[in-house]
């Protein structure tokens, strides 16, 4: 309903995922949540649970083993959602770009809304990113964004859209 849309900005809950990062950006994210930079004054809670979050904070260049889990978590977040790629590894692969074991950033798998540079990023940049993401969140609709590059349509079972088994589709799709 139209009435609820402004409230998306007032209570963004984040889900933080480390897709193979060196933990530098993770430490900066946790510092942003701590008492000094205090993200909770914007109503941000770090839930560990995709089903209850709006903002997906990802760090790290995607390693081979974390791609399926990345996609599975992304699919379990209900719409409307934004994805923030924190750190230069997540945006372009960073210092590891072109290596055999990383996939050069998450936008090969899921649609990204905000890119945050830095190696590591700083809490100030992260807070800026979240504020920008909130504006984007307000403008989004509740339709399912088809994860554009990798998958076909999301399957339907009966008259229900089913997001089961997203992780298994990654490998299937790459085989084709």
């Amino acid at each position, binding site marked *: 309903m139209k009435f609820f849309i402004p409230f998306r900005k007032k*209570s963004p809950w984040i889900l933080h995922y480390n897709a193979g990062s060196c933990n530098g950006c993770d430490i900066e994210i946790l510092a942003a949540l701590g*008492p000094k930079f205090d993200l*909770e*004054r914007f*109503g941000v809670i770090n839930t560990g649970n995709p089903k*209850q979050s709006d903002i997906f904070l990802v760090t790290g260049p995607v390693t081979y083993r974390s791609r399926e889990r990345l996609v599975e978590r992304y699919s379990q977040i209900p719409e*409307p959602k934004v994805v923030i790629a924190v750190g230069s590894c997540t945006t372009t692969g960073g210092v590891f770009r072109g290596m055999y074991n990383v996939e050069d950033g998450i936008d090969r798998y899921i649609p990204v809304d905000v890119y945050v540079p830095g190696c590591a990023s700083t809490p100030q940049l992260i807070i800026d990113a979240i504020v920008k993401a909130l504006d984007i969140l307000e403008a989004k609709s509740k339709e399912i964004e088809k994860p554009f590059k990798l998958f076909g349509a999301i399957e339907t079972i009966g008259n229900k859209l089913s997001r089961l088994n997203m992780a298994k589709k990654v490998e299937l799709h790459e085989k084709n």
Partner: protein
Amino acid sequence: MIWVWIALAPILGGLVYGGERVLRARMQRRLGPPFLQPFYDMFKLLDKRTLIVHAPHALLAVAHFFALWFTVAAIFLGWNLLYIVFLHLIAQMLLILAGYSVRSAYSHLGANRELLMLVAYEPILILVAVGLYLVSGSFEITGMIQKGNYLAQLPLLFAALLMIVPIKVKKSPFDVGEAHQEIVGGVEIEYSGVFYEFLYMSRFLEYLFIYSFVFIFGGESVWLGAVLVAGVFLLVNLVDNATARVRTPQMIKIIYMAAMPLAVLNLVWILR
């Protein structure tokens, strides 16, 4: 008039919860969220696309919320305290059944811990009801708040009740049911959107439920009751910020070795 209060019970609970988040933040020397934050959360959750695991799981959460609302309504109307404890038991069992009905390891672990928490606090709640009955002569709340003098005769029982308040409001050291770092939220894990909203509002109602027990100890003086509630509120948040979580067997040991003997001792002392 009382029906207005009953209808607004979740909103009252929301204000209490919002105030508590501000209080905790100030204790940690930071700003904290706005006072009305729980309501912003509520409206945001209503705006998400509905995503469920399966239908009975979602519906049991709704049932839990309404059963708990009914219990709080019963408290406001001043019915039999013992019945109220058991109405609350039905509400908790609905939540536990919801936790068990999906095939998720975290949900099962959370429901296991909720059951163990039930084993810890339910006997003490019933003993509190019996103790209040022995002093005031009636199980009805309307009868209980007409007599004074509970604190003088039941100090140890009040101490036992203080020990189980952290269990009910899910604060350290006894917040094993919703141990975020251990079991990622326990029973709440598979809920999203509207259905998580129902669980969120049940948290508010739990606050109202357990603080009413503290309020009854004030007896006929409303001011004493209010002072007790405020004092316990501050104390619980202070303890929450200062302690770590105990393990579940330790929690049961602590309650049965400390709170239960206190309660029984007090009852023996009254019956002399």
